[in-house]
């Protein structure tokens, strides 16, 4: 997959954070598609499908998932665990996003296989910088497996 074609999945429940994250990401990488899921349940349905619907074809284009730790219904850590539990998705880069910097949560996230852990900064300039760095690294520097090889499981 050519660099820059990858999309970003943002899983974020708070409307304010949704707007602020989307704004920062758009400024950082204007051409990458950004997919938003509003809670853990929706994210799982998007990634794995339900009994009535198949999983979204957009999953194949994902370059990174920005996953909020604290989500209603299904928590961020549970979503991470599900992603890592099946070969369909276990290769997906997952960046855990959180307001907190609790060491216990940090350790648990890495134990469950997070690729990165980012504490969202209160200062919006620094938050924007974080988003910019993340988008640039995961979408342009980092390599993910090609479609048709590991993605065809």
């Amino acid at each position, binding site marked *: 997959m050519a660099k820059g074609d990858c999309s970003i999945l943002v899983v974020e429940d708070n409307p304010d954070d949704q707007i*602020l994250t989307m704004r920062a990401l758009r400024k950082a990488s204007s051409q990458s598609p950004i997919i938003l899921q509003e809670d853990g349940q929706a994210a799982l349905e998007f990634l794995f499908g339900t009994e009535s619907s198949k999983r979204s074809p957009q999953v194949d284009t994902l370059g990174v998932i920005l996953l909020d*730790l*604290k989500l209603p219904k299904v928590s961020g850590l549970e979503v991470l665990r599900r992603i890592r539990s099946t070969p369909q998705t276990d290769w997906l880069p997952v960046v855990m996003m959180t*307001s*907190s910097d609790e*060491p216990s949560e940090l350790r648990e996230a890495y134990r469950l296989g997070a690729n990165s852990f980012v504490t*969202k900064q*209160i*200062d*919006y300039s620094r938050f924007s910088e974080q988003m910019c760095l993340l988008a640039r690294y995961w979408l342009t520097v980092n390599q993910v497996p090609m479609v048709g090889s590991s993605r065809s499981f």
Partner: protein
Amino acid sequence: MSERWRWQYWPLKTKLLLLTVSISTLGILLVCTSLVVVENRTSEEQLESELHVIADILAEQSAAALLFEDSQQINTIISSLNQINTIEQVCVYNVAGDLMSALNGTGYEPCPSLDAEPEVGFVGDYYRLLEPVMLDGDIVGQFYLMSRLEVLREHIWTFIVISFSVGIGILGLLIWVASRLQRLISEPIVELSNAADRISHEHDYSIRVPVYGKDELGRLGSAFNEMIGTIQDQNQKILQSKDDLERTVAERTSELSLANRELEAFSFSVSHDLRQPLRAIEGFGQALEEDCREQLNDVGLDYLARIRAATVRMGSLIDGMLVLSRVSRQAMEVERVDLSTMLAEIVEELQDTVDTLPSEVTIQPDMQVVGDERMLRIAFQNLLENAWKYTSKNEKRAIDVSACEELNSITIALKDNGVGFDMKYVDKLFVAFNRLHTPAQFSGTGLGLATVDRVVRRHFGRVFAESPIDSGACFYLEFPRPDRG
């Protein structure tokens, strides 16, 4: 010699029995011996007097015959003694000492000569007597008699056998009685000793010994029982207070762990839920500033800047509170920490980021403390950041960190040439949210030194500070050294 054969290992019973047996044996032996001696003496005296009577009678009868030296007559007289089996020899001498007549028993032996005075009395197996024969006051001859002692000896032997048999019988009886009676003394003592043994092994203080009578043993038993009773009461009280203490500790622990869980939940909540709205205020503030700048006048932009600055300050307050709460509740991981290296790292970070003021930082090499590395880093980061901040208005910054080692403690002194503080308010220095400078002078949350204090306290140390007028501030952190204590 095996230990159990030693006197001090013998049971009391055996000792008492042995004492009784030895004393009784000695007594019986003495009684029997004296009885035998007395009996022997009496028998001898009786024999002696009988023989003297016989001799007297015969001497009297043979006096006339002696005067006329009529041996025939004397032979007739003394031959009557043949009737007495035990008489061995009888000799009759005339006044000149010549043998006139003799009667010899089975063991023939010539009559002794009177020239050498013959032995008389009990000699060997014989009794010998020699007495003058008198007639009208004149000595007319000598009468010699020798008697065997076998009958006497047999009698004495029989007496010895009987008396010692009776003695042994009495001794047996005494041993039997003693073995019964010694229990009166030994049993209470043995019971006392067994009870003491059981109490010391089983720690069962309900054991009591039976008390016999009102003598010393009885008093000993009563005193022992009283003593064990006192111990039992005290033991009961100790166990009771131990139970109470354990219950109190358990209650406190559960209260404490509940409080800790609540504090943790609170911290999590602060971490997530208080930061999020702040981020929204700050984020939308910036978005407003960037996207709608044209619609705002200068006053509006100033208000917006103030809103954003206050939000960031609130953010650092929350961060400070979280650090403070974390150093209070997180588990300690104690190890040896190279403080000099840690301080050098912190200083390097500060020099890279904060300002460009020429700084002269002296750190004593090879300072070592034992503690939690992460917590100590937080504490010294706070202290050095303070030093940096309060020296920022100087022309040149000078910071000196040194250690003073004592027997049981190590004190780290951190000295700067900054603005210092008013010693009047030194008490408020380490209290959370208390600040000695206005935000216009120096920014800060009022949580840094409270966090330092908390870290040092968790290391069982203490922190104190002094600020001589116009010569900066000096902070002392004293850590105990358990390895040397």
